[in-house]
């Protein structure tokens, strides 16, 4: 193998080198704001205003300030609860729906699929008004589903992540040959056993991509959180807390960037965990 591939590699065209240099430049441009965030978080208080792109005295002061004084930990836990609930429920529900919508043809199926596409287009800003009143009403019947609670936030984020998730997963389920199911049926495997033991693993890359998007949406959501958790300080989520740091008169950039860095870490962990599957997941969604 090595003898075959070596001459090919030597024949790199000059255009390739230019392309690679261009890629490096783009990578650098993309990295600047991200580098700046981490750098500012570690800069000691005196250096924050300086434009120097390095620091010789990195400190954890900003992180400590954020973690101690602002109840950051609590908001962090709130956001994590909401995001993880949304991810788990959205994986389960979108998988079941995608199986049913792909494998079972019924009247109005196309209409339903187009509706899921249309759901992508609803401008969410306007929905905050009815949602506010709905949750307010629900709260007077069942307090846990009312305003300033996390449960309705989970349900709303879930409902908004489902259409795209189902739409994506459909392609994956469709890619599993129906013969496989017939064979399993002949072997006497039960419906549910087939779904979980054969179909589920085959659709897993799609589920991974779906879960990333659901996680990002829920973890990043600002609008719904701001609408539904409008007065209870304890139940705020991180994106709301980030807005609290932003006081025009006393911009604490060190604190803001430390908070931003902390908020980034879970996304990063989640991302590293699934990066390999993300590309195949997204492309599978489009082929369907």
């Amino acid at each position, binding site marked *: 193998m090595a003898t075959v591939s070596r001459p090919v590699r030597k024949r790199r065209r000059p255009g390739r080198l230019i392309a*690679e240099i261009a890629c490096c430049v783009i990578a650098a441009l993309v990295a600047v704001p991200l580098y700046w965030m981490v750098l500012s978080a570690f800069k000691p208080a005196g250096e924050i205003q300086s434009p120097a792109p390095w620091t010789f005295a990195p400190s954890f002061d900003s992180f400590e300030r954020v973690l101690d004084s602002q109840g950051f930990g609590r908001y962090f836990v709130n956001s994590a609860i909401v995001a993880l609930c949304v991810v788990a429920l959205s994986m389960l529900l979108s998988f079941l729906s995608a199986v*049913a919508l792909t*494998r*079972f043809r019924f009247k109005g199926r196309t209409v339903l699929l187009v509706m899921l596409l249309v*759901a992508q287009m609803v401008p969410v800003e306007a929905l905050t008004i009815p949602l506010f009143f709905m949750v307010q009403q629900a709260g007077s019947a069942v307090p846990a589903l009312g305003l300033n609670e996390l449960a309705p936030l989970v349900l709303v984020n879930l409902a*908004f992540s489902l259409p795209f998730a189902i739409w994506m997963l459909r392609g994956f389920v469709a890619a599993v040959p129906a013969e496989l199911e017939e064979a399993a049926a002949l072997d006497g495997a039960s419906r549910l056993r087939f779904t979980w033991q054969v179909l589920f693993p085959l659709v897993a890359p799609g589920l991974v991509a779906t879960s990333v998007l659901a996680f990002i949406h829920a973890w990043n959501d600002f609008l719904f959180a701001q609408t539904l958790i409008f007065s209870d300080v304890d139940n705020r989520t991180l994106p709301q807390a980030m807005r609290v740091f932003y006081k025009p008169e006393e911009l604490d950039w060190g604190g803001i960037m430390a908070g931003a860095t902390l908020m980034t870490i879970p996304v990063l962990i989640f991302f590293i965990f699934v990066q390999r599957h993300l590309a195949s997941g997204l492309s599978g969604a489009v082929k369907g």
Partner: protein
Amino acid sequence: MPATDSAGLGRGRALAFVAPALVLIGIFLVFPALWSIYIGLTDYTLTGPSSVNPRIVGADNITGALSDPLFGNSLWLTLLFVFGSALIGQNILGFTLAWMLRGARRWLRRLVEGLVLLAWILPSTVVAYLWVAVLDRDGGTLNALLNTPGTAWLVQYPMISLIVFNLWRGTAFSMLLYSSALDVVPPSQLETARMVGAGRFSTLKDVVFPHIRGHVLTNTLLITLWTANDFTPFLLTAGGPDHRSETLPVFIYQQALGSGALGYASAISFLLLLVNLVIALVYLRLLRRRG
């Protein structure tokens, strides 16, 4: 009916599988959407007499919007934003990156993909702060890099800043999609194109594009819709200065919660939904012509 039910799922089980998702979507998405269309037909406001007793005003909000210069302004800015940052920007940059990375060294490919993806998945509140810091008038990184002290980018060039920002943030999706689409193009055809001396443009147009047409359309549709509905500009400029970066989602939010004109805001979001629908119909049309 075995013909309609390849997996032998059974009507009952199929319904049970799909019901929870549909119920949730129905309650939290469809119902509020219909409600907001209804609110759009009234003169409902956050405060004042109309907050207690809203009147049905029919299409008054729509006609009002169509003659409102602020609405026209924000429709234009939205088109600019979508056209500049998504339709042209993310599409072309995403494809170029995917194309260039195809033959690049593996570590370089990983690095670029990782960074671009990172920009995409970071919380919007976080990236908004990053960009406010980078573009800051005093002590901003960009001014230090370009040696242009005192330039308030978000104030002097709000739309260009937003477009560049969205390009930075959103290219990842197009890049990912196009890199996997390019895997579909048979290398032998590219080789043949090179042998017969086809130029780069005609290779792309005649060899690559027919294979990835579906991907291009789907990608364009999704990034168009996402960009048109993107709320992040609010976190960067809040529509200012003087409405110069007030895209429709920001305009809707400002009308609803800034001015308290809930009826008017709902009517405008209905208009935005219609625009989105037209885009989606055009897309479905183009996609169907594929076969």
